[in-house]
Every structure is written in C-alpha cells, then in structure tokens.
C-alpha cells in the first residue's frame, strides 16, 4: 500500500484528525515505491526495492507543538500516534517562532504522473543494455538506475487538504576505457521512464571515454569554458547553480551572514547582481520538469521569479520570517528553471575560438560563504576547444570560482535541458578560474 490514492489518503487523514483533541492538528502521509539497480565493472553489484508509507502527526496546544510518526495504520496505532504527539506538545516549551497552521489552499496540478513504470526486469534490461554496449567496445560501465512513484498528502484542522503523486527515474553512467586512461559520463532524469534511453546515454558516455584518452596538461589560469548542464547542477551533491539558488534564504541574508546580505543591514533584493541575460525562476507547471504543488508547510507553489534580467527579484521567506518581515511567504520549490537560448552545446562549441568544454564538476565545496566562492574539479570528459571544434582532451583541473562572478561573465546561454528536476542550459563563461591540475582520470 505504498501509494495511496487521493481519496484513500484523505480518508485516512480525516480519521487521524478525528482523534485529535489539540488546538491545531496537521497530519501528513508520505509514500514511495521504487526500485534500483547498480552495476560496475560490467556486472550488477546491487539491486533493491523500497516500499514505504509513513504518517506524521503534529499536534499543537497554543504555541506548544509535538510531532509523532508511525508506519502502521490500524486504528490502535493511529490513536496512539495522535496521543503521543499531544503528550509531546503538552510537555514542549512554547515556540517563539510559532506560526498558525494554514487554512484551505488552492493548488496547481503539475503534470507529473507517468502511466507506466520500470519494473525489476526492465531495470535489469536497461543495465544489461548499458553493460553489453560497453563490453563490446572493451569499455567498462558503472551505472545506477533508480525510479519510482511517490505521493504526499496533508490535511489539517484548519481545513487544509493537499495531495500530489509524482514519478521520477534517474539514470547515470560512467564509462571508462579498459586501461583507465579515458572516462566519460552521462546523466538523465525523467518524469516518464518511457523517455529514458539508457543505451543512448551510455553511448554518449562511451564516446566521451574514448575521446578523452591521452589528455594533455594545460596551464591552470583563467579560461573561457562551456559548462554542460551536469557541470552546473547535481542532484546528489553541492553544485554551482544549485548551491547558489537554494541558498537564497531571506533570513540568513537579513541576519548578515549570506552572500545576499547588504552592507549595513538588510538584504540585496532589488539589486542587479548578475549579467542581464540571467533569469531564474521556478514553475511547478513546467511540462519537462514539473515541480511540487506545495511545500512542506502546505504553501502552494506557483511560478516565481528569483532572478530577472540579472536583478535579485525575491528570496525564500519561511512563514515565520515572512511574518516578521511583513512580507508574503514563499513556498520552497524543489527545482528551478534557468532561462536560456536555443543553441545546443555543439553550437556553443562552434562559436568558440578558444576554450574548455567541461562535462561534469565534482566534489564542490564552499570555500567562503561571504562571496560564495566554491572549489571543485572537472571530471569524466574535459576537452580543449579551438576554432569551433574540440581539438584534444585535457587533464582535469581544479577551479576556485563563485557563481556570482561566473554569472557576470556570461558569453552565451544555450538551450535548457532537464537535470535533477531543474531546467539548466549549458553556459559559455569567460575568465573561469582554474587554480591547479589534477592527474585524475
């Protein structure tokens, strides 16, 4: 019963709320059914599946709150869960950051449910296709395929009712040459698994692996770079764009400890911090990368612009900070869309006299939160471009760069592609700072 329908979920939540004696009560259900397969050295290493549903009950008495959870749904367990949340609430201190629960809300309906899903057999087949292709070329594949369906439902004593179901499938593959001198990478995530082509992605990674053999060393320094989407956004680690966008919290900025803090106090909302071609927004209704209809508090998401023509248009305001600031709260989105042009990465390369093509960046860490200086390294396919063509593979490089500076040094913006639930264009950037060479392949 990992995936409950809207009616099933709301019926269960209604029952939970009926047990409440608290001033306010909110119940949330989350469930996911998914499966994964992992392979390396052209052989399956692990495979697993997950089926889970859990209920969280938050009970409030005045400004005191308690939360309890359970993953069984018989009447006795449900009653005990509500009772425990109420016991905890009675014992808890009053919260100075109390905000009343939301009342009824109107939500958008993001287009996010696929009709068919991968099964253990189709996952194994996709992995086998990927491994067979590589084995035939004396290459080694290591990949991970993970996909499933999730739902989240909320209901509270103030009349809020929310439900959303979504599907997603993620695939990534690293292909290495048998002698370990070349390595290539490809990644994709889709709402509808029918759109996933593991074989084509493996082919792309294989091509990069083969063409990255015999990499030459170049001097570190400032270079024009073309950063592919996988070099800008990652779902499983800090990334140049993800780190910056999801770090746009109003509270940290107003408190004076963010790259968006203003000298003397306040934040930099309304200031032009980036090149005028930079526009970043979120839109749960985007057909290719649909978002959540509501955030963890039940706030409805909508199309919301964070950066417009280089100007900081809005920051994330939690409900508490919004009330304190006398501004509207902003639902926290689960993805973003960076507006782009029409050029593909290949076309960006064609228009480049001298530069570096970066497939993927790795182990990105914040060096200075004040300037958002990040460090990290190129990986799995780094090439030198001359007169519009890829001339030769180059050794990997470490960068020290701030996305704030990077987004002021824009040469061109390509066509956005879906990555990690976001829409990210390849970017051509001048004066990107590489500080040392790496021997890693």
């Amino acid at each position: 019963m990992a995936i409950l329908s809207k009616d099933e979920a709301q019926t269960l939540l209604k029952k939970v709320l009926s047990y409440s004696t608290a001033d306010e009560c909110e119940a949330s259900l989350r469930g996911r059914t998914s499966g994964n397969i992992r392979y390396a050295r052209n052989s399956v290493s692990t495979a697993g599946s997950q089926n889970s549903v859990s209920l969280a009950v938050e009970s409030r008495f005045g400004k005191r709150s308690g939360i309890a959870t359970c993953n069984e749904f018989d009447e006795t367990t449900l009653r005990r869960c509500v009772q425990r949340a109420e016991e905890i609430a009675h014992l808890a201190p009053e919260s100075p950051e109390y905000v009343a629960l939301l009342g009824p809300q109107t939500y958008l309906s993001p287009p996010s449910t696929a009709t068919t899903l991968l099964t253990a057999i189709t996952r194994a087949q996709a992995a086998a296709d990927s491994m067979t292709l590589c084995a035939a070329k004396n290459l080694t594949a290591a990949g991970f395929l993970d996909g499933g369906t999730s739902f989240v439902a909320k209901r509270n004593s103030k009349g809020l009712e929310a439900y959303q179901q979504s599907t997603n499938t993620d695939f990534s593959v690293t292909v290495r040459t048998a002698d370990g001198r070349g390595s290539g990478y490809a990644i994709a995530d889709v709402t509808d698994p029918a759109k996933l082509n593991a074989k084509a992605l493996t082919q792309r990674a294989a091509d990069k692996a083969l063409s990255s053999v015999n990499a030459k060393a170049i001097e570190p320094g400032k270079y024009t770079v073309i950063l592919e989407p996988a070099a800008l956004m990652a779902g499983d680690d800090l990334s140049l764009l993800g780190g910056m966008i999801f770090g746009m919290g109003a509270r940290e900025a107003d408190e004076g400890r963010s790259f968006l803090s203003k000298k003397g106090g306040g934040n930099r909302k309304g200031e032009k911090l980036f090149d005028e071609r930079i526009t970043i927004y979120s839109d749960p209704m985007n057909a290719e990368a649909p978002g959540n209809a509501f955030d963890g508090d039940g706030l409805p998401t909508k199309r919301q612009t964070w950066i417009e023509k280089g100007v900081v248009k809005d920051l994330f305001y939690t409900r508490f900070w919004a009330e304190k600031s006398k501004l509207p709260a902003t639902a926290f989105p689960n993805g973003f869309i960076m507006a782009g042009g029409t050029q593909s990465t290949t076309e960006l390369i064609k228009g480049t006299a001298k530069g570096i093509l970066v497939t993927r960046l790795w182990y990105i860490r914040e060096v200075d939160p004040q300037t958002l200086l990040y460090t990290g390294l190129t990986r799995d396919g780094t090439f030198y471009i001359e007169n519009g063509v890829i001339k030769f593979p180059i050794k990997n490089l470490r960068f020290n760069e701030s996305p704030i500076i990077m987004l002021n040094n824009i040469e061109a913006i390509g066509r956005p592609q879906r990555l990690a639930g976001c829409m990210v264009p390849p970017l051509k950037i001048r004066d990107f700072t590489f500080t040392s060479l790496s021997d890693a392949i």
Partner: protein
Amino acid sequence: MKRRDFVGLTGLAAGALFLPSLPGFGGTLVDPARLLEPGADTTIKKRLADAGLNAAKAAGASYADVRIGRYLNQGVFTREKQVQNIASTESYGVGIRVIANGTWGFASTNNVSEAGIAKAAQLAVQIAKANSKVQKEKVQLAPQKGYGEVSWKAPIQQNAFEVPIKDKVDLLLGVNAKALDLGVSFINSVLFQVNEQKYFASTDGSYIDQDVHRIYPTFSVTAIDRASGKFRSRQALSSPVGMGYEYLMPKAADKVAGPTGSDIIGYKYSYDMLEDVASAAKQVKQKLTAKSVTPGKYDLVLDPHHLGLTIHESVGHPLELDRVLGYEANFAGTSFATLEWKAKNIPYGSKAVNIVADKTQVGTLGAVGYDDEGVKTRRWDLIKEGRLVDYEKIRDQAHVVGQDHSDGCCYSQSWQDVQFQRMPNVSLQPGTAKLSVDELVKGVDKGIYIAGNGSFSIDQQRYNFQFGGQVFYAIEKGKITEMLEDVAYQANTQEFWNSCAAVCDESDYRFFGAFNDGKGQPSQSSAVSHGSSTSRFNGVNVINTARKIG
C-alpha cells in the same frame, strides 16, 4: 518522556519542535524513554535469524547472513536562546543478504517475525538469481569461521540516552549564552547521539550481538561586522567519538595546548564545550580583522583536528579496495593507488609516514567487535615508512589481492541497506622520537599553523586536494606571530605525504572524527575516526581565497 525533561526550558525562552525531520536520522519519532527500553532478547533474535537463514538455504542460497538491527538516535538542536528541535528516533528491522548462483541478493523488512524474515530471505534469493543472469564473475568469499554465540559492547561509562534532556538543553543553551556574552552575533549548537543494537547471524555459524554508541557535540559561532558587512564563523574543535556522555565531562589530562601564541586547545577523550566556545568567540572576532594570507609556498604545521580530514580524504578513501577495483566509478570515484601502482613500490609518503587501519581502538567511531559480515575486527598496516603495504577490504575482495582474510570493514548504515566495504579508522602513527608542538614550530622559518577542518575537496582518484581550516596562524622564524585569514592549501596526495618532515610524539596524539562519511548509490553514511599528532609538511602551495562580488 517525563515532564521534568522540559520543565525549566520555558523560562529560557526555548523554542518548540517545529522542525519536522532530522538530517541523516532514519526511523520513526519516539518518546525519549523508548530509547532506554531493552531490545529483543538474544534468544528471540537467534530464533528469528535462524528462520531467515533456513529460508534462504531452502530457496537455494549457498550463503546467507541476517542482520537484526535496532538503530536509536537523538538530536538536540539549539540556536542562540532557543531550542529548535529535540527528536528521538527508532528504526527496527532485518536485512538479509544471500549468495545464490554465485551472485549477491539483498532484501529487508520491518516485519520482524519468523514469517516476515523468511519472506525477505526468499526475495533476496530471487533477486540474486535474477541478477546472476548478467553476472560475469561468481562471488568468492574469504573463508570465515563461525564464532558461535558471542557479544561485544562499547565500553562506555554513561549511556547518553540516560541523561535527562533538560541537562543536554542546559549544556547547549549555556554554551550559547557564553558565546553571546562574549559578543558573537549568532550561535548554533547541536548534540547528536547514536546507539546501534545489532545482531548478526550467518550460515558460517556466527551469532553476534553488539551494542555500539556514538556521540557528537558541536557548534558554530558567527561574528558579523555590520559596517563592512563582513562575517566569519568558527566551528567547534570537538570530535564525534565512539563514547557515551562521559565525553562531555572534561578532564584536564585530556586537554592539549597548541603551539605557544596560538590560543588553540585540542581535546583527547573528553571535551570542554564551554571552554572551546569561549576560545571560538574570541577567535571568530579576531578572524574579522586578521591579515589576508599572501599566497605562496609555506611549511604547514597541521593540528590533529585538521590533519584527520586530510588523512581521511587522501589515505582512507584511496585505499578502499572497492574504489581501487572500480565499484565506485560512477559516483565516489576510483583511486590512484591501483594494484599496479602498489606493485611498483612507489613511495606514498616520506619515511615519517606510518599509517595503520584499526577497528579496535577504544572510544573511536570505527570500533566494533565484529563487522557487518561477522568478521572479528583487527589492526593492520596500510603504509609503512612511506610505502603502501595493504588496502582496506572485505570478504568478497580479499582474493583479488591474493589474501585469505577480510579486514573486517564491512558496514551498513541500517538494517534496510546492504552492507558494503567502508573505511576503518585510519591513523597516522605518532613520531617515535620525543617532539612537542613547540619544538616542531621552532624549526619552521616561514609557515602556517592550521587548526580545525574547513572546506575540503579532492578529485575522484584522490590526487589533487584543497583544504581550508578553522583558525590559521603565521609562523615566522620558529614563532607564531599573528592570525591569518583566507587560507587554503592545494597539493597532490603523493607530493604532500612525501613532504611530511616530522610528526610529534604520542603525547600530542588525538582523534578527529568524520560522523557522516557518504559513499555508495543510494548513498550510505558511516562514521570513522582518524588519529594523528601535529605534523609538519614542507613547501605546500597556499592560495588566497578572498574574492570580491558586486
């Protein structure tokens, strides 16, 4: 939970439980009193485990192991004058791993009954058989004798879950009050506590019951200069440890002073949180006006709380045999320290570099009696006088390097995740000649002393790394002269360890801990300690990290 746990908080303007989830904490939210209730008796666990083992064998498994795990966590989170969250969680279930047709299969269930476990065992065998169709090489396990019914318990003095929540909140809010009194702008302080109650049984004939404890107190203070808009932070110099609440009862004998003029205090087997926050408050304000470093080559003097992370990234990870063999190629990466590289006997470091792996050191995060595939833990050499002599491996890898035993470093973060090879405690051995930190600094003409770990990044084969720190001091002509800022160093692993000129003696030896080391897809977390004494590295490239934005 008893009312007295919360009584007294109200007057401190403490906040309530408005953060719904805890990072990295699985399980369901429970009453803290539940954390002290005993788990199932070993007689019951043996019967349940046998149900799984028998079902796996009946379904065609040639090998099976069953892990019945009860994982308990508690986190207390505060900022300034308020409690942000207090959460206690419990996760209980069973993971079953089998070999069928020479291939691994794994399944897990939270239905901890004979029938539930048997069903999961059958599913694990089905998965193994399905995957065997695309398997190239059959799994080969290093032989392992059954130990019969045995147990291991971390030698803690006080179970942290027995300490009333009020005492923990009082400690953290006291730490925050001290920092605010000393003029910092913000402070966050946190106390994590973990108890893993693990039962392992295998078809080799082992039935192993273990009780593992971890604790991690930490904080971050921030100072802001409103006029210039500049802000700086300083993190705690505590380490997560494999101990009970006794870690928070400071003893003078566990305090180690940094070099004269540095104002740094390091901690061994107990931690003085109030003392450290007072140092942090002073240092974070100094950081606002400290001199920005001039980039160039410096001799680095690295304290153990800093060096531990460098050891973790540049020795611990590259010597994980699964990385070396390519199993982590798609995410965590591979390793420069290939089997061919080792065969060539290329020096990993200077003669001063002796690095051991050890999962038996008392009080460390990696210490257990047996690993998660029933192998008794041990200590072994990784690097001897600068030469790589061995890797970190588990049962299905030993044959690849011509060995007939596992090193006992198999671990899973929970019952519901499959166990795989994880890093043991990896530590730099102290120098054998008597050498204090002051004596070490005395010999440095132009250098930087670095305490605490900051930003860290390393490539996917573990050659090129960049590390920051918490506090930096200039060394000129053998003396600490002033605080520096904007410091990070970049090096190549082999060059760095070959530049190791001296390691202080045992009196300076202490552990750094990595509480949430991530690896695998889906990613799993593991905790590990790294011991070292303050060490000197000559001629390392230091960069200046200051930038200007709009």
